[in-house]
């Protein structure tokens, strides 16, 4: 539904070309591809028969993968497929394994990637009803190695300080300005509390389902990247379908994540410098995946989350999904339009060099807290125009390892959306640190060395 004033080319102005012998007209009522078989399904107003549909899906997947591969310059490496067990990622796994095998068969052809493995995040600590063995079976039937990481592993002790606890001074004498900041102290992962308990306490400390869903997504992405890194895979495939991406775009925008949006739903994302993330299923809508799985007899499981089977207003994610799917029924190209909009947006220049957020690992926008406090006056002092607070860009603002008990001001280290999550969480909640700085260090260090030679565009 593009605006009529934008000068969209109309087909009437092009000269008509005579159909050559390679172009045959559509036969109404028959499959649009082979034109001889009776159609079995309608996708986006086109009719397909079973065989042609499956073949079309496979071709679409391979084209998307090749496009991503060519647009990011990564040397040939191992590839990890993120497998949740749901319909989208299972379909992606079998198509990718098939693609890889096809390349190996030919004698002259080079294998596409050194190896293809499946990566899975085991959420049984939160959702014990899921049978992990089924998911291992899916990987086995695709013929790939299955690697699994437990969700509570985010709290595991890996030698570095990885968790921080929110401290809030609820004393009456505390001034309003202090209340705008977030204070936290370092927590050493001790042996007296297991990671599983810690995980459960963390999710219990978050107050709304919206926050819980957001944190679950964030933790799963971080764990998958960590797993890919451990297995030395340079590429990670995420199975977000077109419908899921459209929903995510609206849902992330509604939560204030516009700054990091291109990295979270983009077709290719190189935010984590050593692992490139691709989303080859973005051209598939859920209906296509459903029929593909049915006709290729693909095994899948149901992946539950906090708001599965809940009413629409349970969380922002659930509300957005209900809305976008409903809107798509009234205006049939909504999902693809939103997806295309995304492709035309790019991250801000500042985003690529920004610090990673302490909680989610994605870029932190400059002055996020100041933006909010300027627009939301909540004190009675006569500070009519709030002065800009002094910029403290000293990275040693973070908690030091020796003095784990002092509470430090971590507001600047959290992105806009994570700030509101931490604000609304119960005091004393222990949050997992993303440790994403170790992913970004090399890039940052490089930049610092050659900083003085860059010409600022504002000069």
């Amino acid at each position, binding site marked *: 539904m593009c605006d009529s004033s934008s000068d969209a080319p109309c087909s009437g102005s092009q000269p008509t070309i005579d159909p050559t012998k390679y172009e045959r007209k559509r036969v109404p009522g028959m499959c649009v591809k082979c034109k001889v078989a009776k159609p079995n399904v309608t996708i986006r107003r086109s009719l397909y028969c079973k065989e042609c549909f499956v073949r079309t899906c496979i071709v679409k997947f391979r084209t998307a993968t090749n496009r991503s591969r060519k647009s990011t310059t990564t040397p040939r490496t191992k590839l990890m497929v993120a497998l949740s067990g749901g319909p989208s990622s299972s379909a992606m796994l079998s198509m990718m394994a098939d693609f890889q095998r096809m390349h190996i068969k030919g004698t002259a052809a080079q294998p596409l990637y050194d190896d293809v493995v499946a990566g899975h995040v085991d959420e049984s600590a939160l959702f014990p009803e899921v049978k992990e063995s089924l998911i291992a079976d899916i990987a086995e039937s695709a013929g790939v190695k299955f690697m699994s990481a437990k969700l509570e592993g985010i709290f595991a002790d890996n030698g570095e300080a990885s968790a921080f606890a929110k401290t809030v001074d609820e004393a009456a004498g505390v001034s309003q300005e202090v209340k705008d900041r977030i204070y936290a102290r370092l927590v050493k992962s001790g042996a007296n509390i297991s990671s599983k308990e810690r995980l459960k306490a963390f999710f219990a400390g978050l107050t709304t389902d919206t926050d819980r869903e957001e944190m679950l997504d964030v933790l799963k992405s971080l764990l998958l990247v960590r797993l890919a890194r451990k297995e030395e895979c340079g590429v990670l495939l995420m199975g977000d379908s077109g419908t899921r991406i459209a929903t995510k775009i609206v849902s992330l*925008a509604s939560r204030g994540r516009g700054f990091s949006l291109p990295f979270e739903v983009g077709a290719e994302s190189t935010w984590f410098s050593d692992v490139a993330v691709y989303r080859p299923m973005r051209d598939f809508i859920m209906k296509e995946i459903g029929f593909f799985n049915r006709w290729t007899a693909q095994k899948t499981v149901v992946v539950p989350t906090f708001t599965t089977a809940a009413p629409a207003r349970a969380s922002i994610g659930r509300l957005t999904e209900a809305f976008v799917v409903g809107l798509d029924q009234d205006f049939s190209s909504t999902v693809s339009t939103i997806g295309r*909009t995304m492709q035309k947006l790019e*991250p801000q220049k500042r985003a690529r060099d920004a610090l990673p957020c302490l909680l989610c690992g994605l870029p932190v926008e400059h002055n996020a807290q100041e933006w909010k406090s300027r*627009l939301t*006056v909540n004190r*009675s002092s006569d500070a*009519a125009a709030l002065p800009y607070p002094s910029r403290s860009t000293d990275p040693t603002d973070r908690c030091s390892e020796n003095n784990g008990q002092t509470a430090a001001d971590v507001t600047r280290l959290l992105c806009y959306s994570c700030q509101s999550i931490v604000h609304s969480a119960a005091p004393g909640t222990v949050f997992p640190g993303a440790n994403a700085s170790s992913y970004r260090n090399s890039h940052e260090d490089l930049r610092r060395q050659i900083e003085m030679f860059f010409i600022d565009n504002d000069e």
Partner: protein
Amino acid sequence: MPRKCEICHDARAILRRPKTGQRICNECFFYVFETEVHNTIVESKLFKRGDRVGIGASGGKDSTVLAHIMKTLNERHAYGLELFLLSVDEGIAGYRDDSLETVKRNKTQYALPLLIVSYEQLYGWSMDAIVETVGRKNNCTFCGVFRRQALDRGALMLDLDHIVTGHNADDVAETILMNLFRGDIPRLGRCTEIVTTGDGFIPRSKPFKYAYEKEIVMYAYLKRLDYFSTECTYSPNAYRGYAREFLKDLESVRSTAILDIIHSGEAMRVASSVQLPTPAQCERCGYLSSNALCKACVLLEGLERGLPKLGIDRSARQAQQIIAADSANADPVVRAVEPVHFERLRQKALAMRERRLNGSDTAHPQSSACAGCADSCCNPDSNDNDKDVCACMSDTTA
């Protein structure tokens, strides 16, 4: 035990603030609301001393509160602005004529000069006549396109430096969502800017960009401001309704969602590889346009010829071709009202400005001199007591 206000800790809390959920007294509410608008104005450096600012006044709650707040802040913080009320009469019976009565009352209440421009006067077509020709489906397009130009024309008639409109945070968030759903990239890049320019010359801004609609209603209610509130008779089928419904649901799940959407919208950047339309001038009327003819001229042409779909459906290029081909004909379409060319309006405004700066002082609204041209010899039209400008401003003949 009654709660104390969370800000002053003194008076009893009587309301819960929609933006933050704080429980505060009404004096503190007025204070925080007015301070936030003041902060927005100062941070974005919207005005400079001596600016003549027109307030887009429809008689609805947003524009009434805007007029009240602009006047209050102008006096309290000494912005040094000259304020005017600028109102557009689309010619919708039963809706616009009622809200215009409210604007006329506002003029007296706030002691601000008022100018009303109407579609009938500027273009020769009222909205009622348009809906009779076009039907009920796409009429919002006509109204919106004509109103934008009408505001700019009115601003030139008064020689204004700036226009402010009462768009609030809910409006901006809805616009962002709507542009996202429809894939309207050029608008998505522009809609979060607090200052835009309609005709390329006079900036227009939204001081209420970060103010919630519910808070505006609360302010108007508590201050007992006079405003008119019903929906436009033709509104039910707009696409914006979907975005609005979604936004209302979002707000009930999480109240900060509106500001969060604006924050996300401001962070989005259009890829440099995308081609955006280049601004040019309309050949017929001189307004800002990305095509040879501006949208208003295309729509008007369609109305005059009895082709109501011209400019509405996607064949924009065909529309341009039809008009270009026919204007080469010997006898073009003759109509009752030909919109004045913008160059002429600008020249008139410039002449007014020179007279004002060189000659006598600016006239007071109560005196008998015309507020617009400051010419003491032309008397205000005695039949029309509600306009403070004389017939020179309503001159639309070429």
